[in-house]
């Protein structure tokens, strides 16, 4: 394949991202703009932005790779990543928006009225964001490597640089516009090449369809521990979405709780539309590039498929489109994650010494550079699996905090901190063991590879039991907080005096 066309695609995606980002710069001047775009974004634009930010390297490249290698059981990844928004919608979307918290640490401080809970939540935001960011940089390196033969660090550095320019210059408002454009760019970049490939292969696949009848690939639950692994994946993805810092911060940009719900329904529709495509790539990959299955190169199946099927200049153009889409995926998710690191570290750590906007910029730069270092050290787990591990940590920490905090009056600060620490430490150790390739074999290995089915109930249990043991320490403003979380904005009520940190500064 021609590296030149692909590089042009990558450069165009980066320039488009930068261009929209710099355009947005004129609109973002105050602290509040930097953190959440002043909450003036409608459901249509916001739903595109949430979807654009959410569809990462794991969705664009990773799902097709897993479907190619391991078949039908892997369809639970995209289904879970979509269903996670339904769970978020019914339990979290409106109350979280009504809480007026900017970040998950803000929510923790509002609900349990404890600085310690806030700090633990801040630490977890950074852990989850970095775990999620590493596979994005890794995917970028892999993509540029597959297209041009460049060393694997080049792609990661390129993504880090573009994201830094956006975050340091524009903040959230520019990111919202960037993300909304990115969704449609990614959808087009998968849809058009798929259409070209399908038209080209029409009727020519009869000889190879036998590859689709391999039982271990085509029939559910054929691998060891498959039932446990599937349900653990379901728990992590269904419950993890609500605890992703870059997703949650977007809900604060809705005008009110009602808009937050309507935005979420649109997100579900946009994700459902998108996820039809990677599955198709995985199946086509099984037909035309079966030798990639199970190899580290499987993560590039989306990029390699056109060259295998088409050939000539058509293949070059189509591959360039796919490369542009892939970079849109790395850039959008990475910038969202770096913004959330910047928001939390900027407010809680650097905010003591620097003015808010400078703290935000410095924290964003530090986050991107540190992640780049970790990416260089980490082993090459499949991109979608690495991202799913971040979901497992989010499901084991922020999911219990949000669900119990919103729906159970009995949650205390001690319970919240104990649950966050228990769930966070257990799931993060499993994740680190998996990433380093140090997981044991057998049943214990399955639990370490997919910890959510064990760690999520443990986190819920810890949070509940410790709260019940400290009933005298219910937060002083619990009643006001419950009114704030649940009462529709149209009713004029006293919702307490909580002001998020970012607004205190401005």
């Amino acid at each position, binding site marked *: 394949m021609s590296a030149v066309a692909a590089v042009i695609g990558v450069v165009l995606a980066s320039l488009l991202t930068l261009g929209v980002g710099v355009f947005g710069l004129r609109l973002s001047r105050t602290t509040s703009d930097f953190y959440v775009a002043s909450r003036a974004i409608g459901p249509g634009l916001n739903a595109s932005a949430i979807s654009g930010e959410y569809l990462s390297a794991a969705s664009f490249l990773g799902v097709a790779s897993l479907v190619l290698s391991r078949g*039908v059981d892997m*369809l*639970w990844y995209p*289904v879970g990543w*979509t*269903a996670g*928004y*339904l*769970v978020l*919608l*019914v*339990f979290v979307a*409106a109350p979280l928006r009504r809480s007026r918290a900017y970040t998950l640490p803000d929510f923790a401080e509002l609900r349990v009225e404890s600085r310690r809970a806030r700090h633990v939540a801040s630490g977890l935001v950074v852990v989850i964001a970095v775990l999620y960011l590493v596979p994005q940089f890794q995917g970028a390196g892999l993509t540029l490597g597959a297209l041009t033969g460049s060393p694997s660090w080049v792609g990661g550095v390129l993504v880090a640089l573009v994201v830094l320019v956006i975050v340091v210059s524009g903040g959230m408002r520019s990111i919202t516009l960037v993300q909304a454009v990115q969704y449609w760019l990614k959808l087009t970049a998968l849809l058009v090449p798929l259409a070209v490939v399908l038209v080209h292969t029409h009727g020519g696949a009869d000889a190879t369809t036998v590859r689709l009848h391999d039982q271990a690939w*085509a*029939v*559910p*639950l054929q691998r060891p521990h498959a*039932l446990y692994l*599937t*349900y653990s994946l*379901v728990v992590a993805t269904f419950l993890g979405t609500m605890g992703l810092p870059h997703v949650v911060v977007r809900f604060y940009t809705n005008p009110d709780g*009602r808009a937050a*719900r*309507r935005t*979420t*329904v649109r997100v*579900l*529709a946009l*994700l*459902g*539309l998108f*996820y*039809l495509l990677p*599955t198709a790539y995985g199946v086509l990959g099984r037909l035309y590039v079966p030798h990639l299955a199970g190899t580290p190169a499987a993560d590039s199946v989306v990029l390699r498929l056109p060259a295998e099927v088409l050939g000539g200049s058509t293949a070059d153009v189509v591959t360039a489109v796919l490369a542009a889409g892939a970079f849109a995926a790395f850039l959008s998710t990475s910038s969202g994650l770096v913004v959330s690191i910047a928001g939390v570290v900027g407010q809680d750590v650097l905010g003591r010494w620097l003015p808010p906007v400078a703290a935000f910029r410095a924290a964003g730069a530090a986050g991107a550079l540190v992640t780049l270092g970790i990416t260089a050290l980490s082993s090459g787990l499949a991109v979608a699996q690495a991202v799913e591990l971040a979901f497992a940590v989010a499901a084991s920490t922020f999911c219990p905090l949000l669900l119990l905090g919103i*729906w159970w009056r009995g949650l205390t600060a001690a319970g919240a901190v104990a649950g966050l620490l228990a769930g966070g430490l257990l799931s993060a150790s499993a994740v680190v063991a998996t990433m380093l390739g140090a997981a044991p074999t057998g049943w214990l290995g399955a639990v370490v590879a997919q910890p959510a089915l064990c760690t999520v109930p443990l986190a819920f249990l810890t949070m509940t039991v410790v709260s019940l043991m400290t009933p005298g320490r219910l937060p002083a403003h619990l*009643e006001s907080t*419950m*009114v704030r979380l*649940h*009462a*529709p904005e*149209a*009713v*004029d*009520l*006293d919702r307490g005096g909580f002001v998020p940190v970012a607004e205190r500064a401005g």
Partner: protein
Amino acid sequence: MSSTPHGPRARVRVTGPRTGRRRPTTVAAEIDARTELGAVYMRSLVRSQLRLAVGVVLVVLATLGAVPLACALFPALARLEVLGVPVAWVLLGVLAYPFLVLLAAGYVRRAERNEAAFRDLAGARDVPR
């Protein structure tokens, strides 16, 4: 009607027996005053929304969520094909998505209905009280 703060019982109230402090006059005022009645209104809103949310999640678990378990219990189901197309692939690869969107849209309609009932009860901001 009311006495001045300093006046020594200038009038005798004849409008009915009063128990305790002055009662708030609207549901919103009850909630703001953190009275028992206000708490009951808030709890009924929270409970109706929670019941709805749990209901939606149970529907997902009983349908989509039951697919792996059904495949494990009945291997024939896992291999089921209709017109040469494997059912598991169609369910998870295609049909799951419109199903989730429909559930979400239905949830939003009901959640807004619950809130509208609460708003009618408590009085909206633009309605003079």
